[in-house]
């Protein structure tokens, strides 16, 4: 069991939310920088000019055309504290279609670490469905 990360009250406390969001933005920026890219926005995280602060997603960016979407849930949420999958955002819609790695988690030091590995592998082009499945196994998920 990983130690809970700071900002556990991110859904109730704006400062905590922004701090947790910054963790993800910094991580994605660092990975992008290593590969010579700048992250670009590809999802709207606002509603009528007001930031959506429900953690779904808490961060989203495109690096080298590859989407990265992070969904962070509260510490009290049911189920496992980490999962990840591939999605084709806008499948069949040429103007918006984009492959993305989606990560759903409760933020802990452990889930942050595995997320960093997956994002690095994804941006480097070294993460496929089998590899992602192998990384996600072991988190106690039921067979689908």
């Amino acid at each position, binding site marked *: 069991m990983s130690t809970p990360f700071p900002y556990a009250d991110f859904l109730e406390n704006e400062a905590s939310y922004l701090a947790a969001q910054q963790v993800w933005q910094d991580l994605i920026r660092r990975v992008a920088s290593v590969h010579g890219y700048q992250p670009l926005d*590809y*999802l*709207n995280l*606002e*509603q*009528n000019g007001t930031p959506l602060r429900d953690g*779904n*997603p808490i961060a*989203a960016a495109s690096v080298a055309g590859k989407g990265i*979407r992070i*969904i962070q*849930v509260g510490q009290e*949420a*049911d*189920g*496992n504290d980490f*999962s*990840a*999958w591939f*999605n084709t*955002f*806008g499948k069949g*819609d040429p*103007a*918006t279609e984009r492959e*993305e790695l*989606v990560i*759903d988690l409760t933020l802990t030091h452990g889930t942050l670490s595995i997320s960093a590995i997956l994002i690095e592998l994804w941006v480097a082009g070294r993460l496929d469905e089998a590899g992602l*499945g192998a990384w*996600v196994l072991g988190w106690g*998920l*039921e067979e*689908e």
Partner: protein
Amino acid sequence: MSKEHRGRLQAQGGGTEKSESWSQDDPLTKEEGLSLLERLWERLTSREQKDRAKQFDSARRFIENVEGGVDAPLGKSFLNRKKRSVRVDIEVLAGTAFVVALLLFYFL
């Protein structure tokens, strides 16, 4: 030619890939969104419904609680956290969605 307001609702993961989409000249209203969600629910098998019941509730609550609509591009996933990727997705790909019917006059 693509319509100005487009998107889709999906039940995904665990071997399921079913969706209901919209592509229209006017923003999708909440009522239309909830109706599409209901249509998607009815297309699922009982097992698929069982695995996504809470996730449909979350998606329904999101649509109901939107104030003033949401602008594209928006992507939200509601995951069954006991499974790896069994989920309900909302994707607003272009334009605006989940407005109240009265607000349509503002957009027209």
